[in-house]
């Protein structure tokens, strides 16, 4: 039996078959390691209970005209701002003002509720919370690295690359919204 396996030139005779077995075994080991690693890596993604906290409701009558309220959603601050007519006008007037991240004010609010601006309150630069009603454009100013946002929450000046993010939300009634 042994003679049929070990040929005269045992070194090179079965080279291609051995190479194949080496490569196949190596590939199987790499594949198996990857399959074992994936559940470990994936376990670091948001867990089911974290994802379950996905939506909240908010009563808009709590916000007074010209003010904002900050609520917490998914661990992040959310700005709910009741804009004055002058602020809405300023935002609309700047729709074509050469914005770094061009977007019309009308696209950032809900039809018929343009006085309400709902935004995720993290600066799009590195995540600080911009301060309300300050900066060169009357919207927000981020004290960390000096980003200025206008009254539509659009980036106007500074290192932030994008406008403040409008989260997914809908009006359940005239005075109640659901975020997420």
């Amino acid at each position, binding site marked *: 039996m042994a003679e049929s396996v070990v040929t005269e030139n045992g070194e090179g005779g079965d080279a291609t078959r051995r190479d194949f077995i080496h490569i196949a075994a190596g590939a199987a080991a790499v594949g198996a390691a990857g399959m074992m690693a994936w559940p470990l890596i994936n376990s670091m993604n948001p867990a089911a209970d*974290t994802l379950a906290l996905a939506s909240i409701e908010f009563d808009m009558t709590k916000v007074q005209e010209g003010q904002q309220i900050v609520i917490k959603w998914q661990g992040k601050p959310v700005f709910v701002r009741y804009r004055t007519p002058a602020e809405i006008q300023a935002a609309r007037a700047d729709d074509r003002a050469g914005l770094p991240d061009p977007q019309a004010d009308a696209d950032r609010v809900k039809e018929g509720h343009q006085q309400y601006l709902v935004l995720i309150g993290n600066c799009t630069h*590195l*995540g600080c919370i911009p301060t309300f009603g300050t900066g060169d454009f009357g919207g927000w100013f981020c*004290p960390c690295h000096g980003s200025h946002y206008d009254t539509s929450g659009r980036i106007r000046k500074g290192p932030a690359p994008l406008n403040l993010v409008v989260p997914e939300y809908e009006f359940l009634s005239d005075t109640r919204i659901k975020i997420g």
Partner: protein
Amino acid sequence: MSDHESTYVPKTGIEKWLDTRLPIVRFGADYMALPTPRNLNYWWTFGGILALCLVIQIATGVILAMHYVPNTEMAFASVERIMRDVNGGDLIRYTHANGASMFFIAVYLHMLRGLYYGSYKAPREMIWIIGCLIFFLMIATAFLGYVLPWGQMSYWGAEVITNLIGAIPVIGEPVLIWLRGGPAIDNATLNRFFSLHYLLPFVIAGCVVLHLWALHAAGQNNPVGILIPKDREKKDTLPFHPYFTVKDGFAIIVFLMLFALFVFFMPNALGHADNYIPANPLVTPAHIVPEWYMLPFYAILRAIPDKFGGVVAMFAAIGILFVLPWLDTSKVRSMRYRPTMRTFFVLFVINGLILGWCGAQLPDAPVIGDFKTFILIDGDLNSYLWLTRFATLYYFAFFAIIMPLVGLRETPQPIPATISEPVLGGDAEKG
């Protein structure tokens, strides 16, 4: 130096028994007998100091982990409990917190030593590269550890630094969520940061073993920078013990005095008061600053007007160190014999301090007095923004332009043939 023969002779019965089974005593004895260049100065003592720093951090850290609770509801309170109720807890925590700063003081001096004396050049590239890796792991570990007390600076530092990853195009956002374990920095983040903060010091310890292995394969550099010829090994080297254990020991005592000064008399001088306010995801501190040892890199991050560009520049500032052995074109190792390069080196050190200073300032604040000059592109010329940019430029130019060019153009001073020649005027035999 690496292939010197073992001079260890097992004396007792147990040593003889052990020597054929696990020659660990021989390993230690050979290590202590290692021929070491006799001209090593005090800049060479930081290796031993750093080893001690790692031991102190691991020892205090393991104890702290017995009292700390990695949960957003309890982390801050558990740290305060360590400070007030755990026996000697305040000293253990202050030693750990200030130990991180001491670790970085030592590592920066250790790296500048390597830079000045050309310790990264052939045949020692691997020592340098592994060292750079250790430095990078140290930064990661320090950052993770700073998040654990769950104060305002912990939280917002974590927010800002993890957001850097979000700046990567396309994959940034999913990777960011994966890293945080949720849409924002929260309990999942704190838990994994604690786990990794416990893990990485042991990865560092493993890299230190490789660092020493590479060191003993290539042999130690010395202030003169020449390789010691085989036939001069007896004359130009001394056994590591007792000559350099004593020298290292003295340096360690002096270093521990500085360490003790901070721990006992000003334990919070290097920290930030805001970190004694519990983390609040709805309030950003007015001025977010990292710990002092990260300030130069934080400054480089802020110097670039583009978010992703800033992240790239910051990582490149560390990444460029890895290829340093191939950027330096000079054949001469030690800057003792390179007067031109020495001037640039001194400027580099000053520049690093300026970058660190800039990292702690508000970018728009004026540098000199309280006046405006003129707007250059996007900021006043008399502002930390522009000072940071000039300093960032010099940082990169030093490695990418000055190092290759000066090496080709300069005329180095004559290099001595042996390491005793500068001391004994070439007549080393008499000494």
